[in-house]
């Protein structure tokens, strides 16, 4: 894989300098590195792990690893590629572990939701929150997500209607899900069990998509 051709310019014209400063244990420099790569790492982890907390831990681990190996940073030609590969490998490892350890998840999720004691949020309130989250999506993504989720259109149908590629449609839907998952957690600290419990009756489909 040649990352140079795949990765767009991230405008890291002072990347070398940044890495040198980090190698010298400069926290400010590390902070700006977190700003540049944190969201990217987190977004990928969240897409695959579907757990905001776990995604945060994984992101933290990856960045901590960069810090621990900071003395090697000045020798790295393509730092974005370095982060890229580290993110991919780490997320893969955790994903494997997650997939193998969740043998009973599909059933238990339902039981747990029904047994949950935090059913305080009303259905309408939750629906409003999700809708508000959807409204915050970029226009194109919002349109595609709504067509897919509420319009009941297949990826193929959406692709044809909008005259775009099917994989583009798919990417938009997956990204919308990542965003909504983060949105629920960040803005509302939504509790999984409550959400599932209330929604199962009415919005089984959408909920399956989000969690």
């Amino acid at each position, binding site marked *: 894989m040649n990352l140079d051709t795949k990765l767009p310019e*991230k405008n890291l014209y002072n990347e070398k300098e940044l890495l040198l400063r980090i190698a010298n244990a400069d926290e400010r420099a*590390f902070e700006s590195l977190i700003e540049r790569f944190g969201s990217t790492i987190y977004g990928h982890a969240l897409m695959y792990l579907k*757990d905001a907390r776990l995604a945060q831990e994984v992101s933290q681990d990856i960045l901590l690893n960069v810090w621990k190996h900071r003395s090697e940073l000045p020798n790295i030609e393509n730092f974005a590629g370095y982060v890229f590969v580290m993110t991919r490998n780490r997320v*893969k490892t955790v994903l494997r572990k997650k997939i193998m350890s969740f043998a009973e998840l599909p059933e*238990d999720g339902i039981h747990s939701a029904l047994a949950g004691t935090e059913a305080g949020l009303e259905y309408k309130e939750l629906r409003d929150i999700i809708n508000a989250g959807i409204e915050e999506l970029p226009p194109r993504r919002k349109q595609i997500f709504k067509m897919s989720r509420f319009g009941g259109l297949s990826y193929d149908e959406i692709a044809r209607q909008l005259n775009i590629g099917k994989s583009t449609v798919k990417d938009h839907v997956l990204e919308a899900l990542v965003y909504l998952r*983060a949105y629920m957690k*960040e803005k509302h600290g939504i*509790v999984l069990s409550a959400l599932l419990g209330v929604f199962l009756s009415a919005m089984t489909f959408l909920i399956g998509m989000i969690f």
Partner: protein
Amino acid sequence: MTLLPFEYYIERYLEGSITPEEWKSLQDLINNPDNDIILDRIMDSQLASRFASAENYPLVIERLKKELIENRLIKEPVLEKEKQEPFQQEKQEAPQPSYSVRFLKKAHLRYAAAILLLLIGVSIAYFWMSVGNAEKLTTTDTYHHLETDIGPGGEKALLTLADGSTIILDNAENGNLAQQGSAQVVKLADGQIVYNMEDLAGEVLWNTMSTPVGGQYQVILPDQTKVWLNAASSITYPTAFVDKTRKVKITGEAYFEVAKNKQKPFLVDIDGKLTVQALGTSFNINSYKEELSVKTTLIEGSVRIYNETLTSLPISEQQLNSSVILMPGQQAQVSSKDIKVTSGADIDQALAWKNGVFDFNDADIRAVMRQLERWYDISVKYEGNISGHIFKGKMYRNVNLSDVLEMFKKMGINFKIDGKTLTITE
């Protein structure tokens, strides 16, 4: 375009539309090396467009910065000390300490020998709720008069065999400790206790491992389940799990990594009050009597919690209905007859003890002191109106009590120490 089966399952998983059957297939395929390459390819293309996009999770960035920089996960404490210590002159008599941040690698129970100073977060942020307490920042130097400092807890436990005989584990030599039925009880070089053979036809013998105040220990049960015991805790288990269930009993606090065995559910009886049923799972149970509730925190897998002692499985509909299932990241707090489930539990905090750290995040002073009592074998008293102190931050557990008191002093907490009694004053 046709999708390879594995690619299809991954896509379904990401969309959240995967069925239980497909989930099983995904599990079968995920560890196949060929599929690893496919997964790389899928992830590469997603990552490439993600690197190109401007998506931003500002709150996540804030938390990452906080954890990595402010809470000093990245910090070698020695740097922190040089830079941050306005109280340096008080520490001059101390030899230059050597530090370790090894606990971050989850080096279970391996305490670096020479860690002296404590704070990972420089600052344990500390709030005076009442006004006019500024003068209290100058505290008495009482602790300097300690003739002998009180050391932290360590790897200590007592093993009680089926015949009632006992083995003190911190003194015991490595190697064979005892024969229990056909199982040999072995102490490994790192101090772990292992039962090296499970004879399901043999006689069931019950062993108990218990830790004193200021002790902790680790045991691997005959089914390969790993158990970490915190201070002042115990676990009672058979030397072979011959029954239809794997049943153990605990008191105090323990962390479990349960070996998978679907045929034999793993049941933890907590002091005869409740039962946690595990299915190949990692979880922590804190059941100290002096804490307000029994807290079960699930790290991965799933557990079912019954508000009663189970004698056998299967169980009645009613028992099932009154039980609660936890998902990873959730915590159940069981008090008298009520089970409360919260999501997004602080897992770091729940497991801090196992990783050699005190995690005082948002703890009040009494909760902090209860942990210190169990670890330093001291008793804490309060004089006057002590409240409103909210702690934040983390601290290694293998420091001497005087180092902890040093920190209190900086936080403006007033105290007196007399032998093994610590008195917090207003």
